[in-house]
């Protein structure tokens, strides 16, 4: 599951040959070994090429509001994988898990989003997509009910995998 969720980061490892991994633009910029959990209100959703972006306003423990930028796959890939990204709506409170940027403290790479109805939006990833194609199947990343662990996320919690 975790592998599927962070597929974008793993693409470099899986597709790149000898020297790809260390320099892939995703893995260079984001640390896929870390998971950041952010609860906040969506202020912008831009599903586009070459990278999509979700903007989230997160109220921090001291009461100040921090704006987070969540990078995601390109629009065409999300469309092909039938990821229902339209479930991310401006104004909604959501909890997003993401890989933190290696350089910036308000930038991360999308993994999952717990939506207002508690369903979990996820991206099956390119690897799952192409494996399904090879078997003559198609991938549809249906939202799933969260596990008990995911249903009580804490704002800006950083977990080590």
């Amino acid at each position, binding site marked *: 599951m975790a592998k599927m969720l962070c597929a974008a980061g793993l693409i470099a490892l899986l597709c790149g*040959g000898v020297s790809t991994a260390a320099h892939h633009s995703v893995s260079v910029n984001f640390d896929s070994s870390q998971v950041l959990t952010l609860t906040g209100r969506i202020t912008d959703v831009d599903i586009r090429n070459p990278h999509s972006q979700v903007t989230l306003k997160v109220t921090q423990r001291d009461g100040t509001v921090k704006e987070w930028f969540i990078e995601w796959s390109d629009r065409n890939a999300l469309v092909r994988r039938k990821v229902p990204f339209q479930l991310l709506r401006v104004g909604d409170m959501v909890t997003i898990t993401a890989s933190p940027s290696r350089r910036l403290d308000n930038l991360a790479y999308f993994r999952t989003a717990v939506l207002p109805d508690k369903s979990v939006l996820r991206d099956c990833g390119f690897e799952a997509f192409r494996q399904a194609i090879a078997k003559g199947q198609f991938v549809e990343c249906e939202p799933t009910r969260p596990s008990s662990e995911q249903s009580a996320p804490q704002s800006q919690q950083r977990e080590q995998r």
Partner: protein
Amino acid sequence: MRKMVVALLVCVVSGADAQDKRAQLDGVWILSGSATIEMTLTPAGEAARARYDYLRDDPAMQCIPASFTRVMHTPSPPIEVRQQKNEVRINYEFMDIHRRVPIAPGTPLAKAPVSVPNHPHLGRSVARYEGDVLLIETIGQRAGILDTLGAPGLVQSNEMRTEERFIPDGDRMRVVVTHHDPVYYEKLVVTYPYQRLPGGEILPWDCTPEEANYKRFREKAK
């Protein structure tokens, strides 16, 4: 006499087989696994690579495809191959590249048309067949960055000549790209495995520099 007839029949049948197999190349393809890179750089190639800074030097951040090698390294956008009698059309979803290459054996490369008019730096190409393999040769590629993803920081000189071999295998295809560049490489061969994407189509990419550039993060993060 009988031997000659048999030999002629064998030639006709194998020619037809090659043609059938060539037709397998037509379709929409996605990468099915790791691209493999075999490379030996010259000292100049090593030095150029050491100077590479992706935030400063990656043409993709300006929506410019560095090379077909770079384009094919992008994992998720598919490519489409369509062979016609006198031309092969290859559409790459990444960066909206529409490439037209004449199938014209014997045509001097210097007289070939640029294959992507809005990106002339990708060079002049001519195609021909080697049995069932589609071979595209290219020159006239502008000196600069060759790859920023598979092996980031590879560069190319304007002396580079490239051969791309599209090798059919049913619902699989291999594209073997051999770069001959005496300035920067003793050897550079990249092999891409593809699988057919049933019902696949090439979607618009519509890249804009302000969205492709990581500068937007640096600015917004301030």
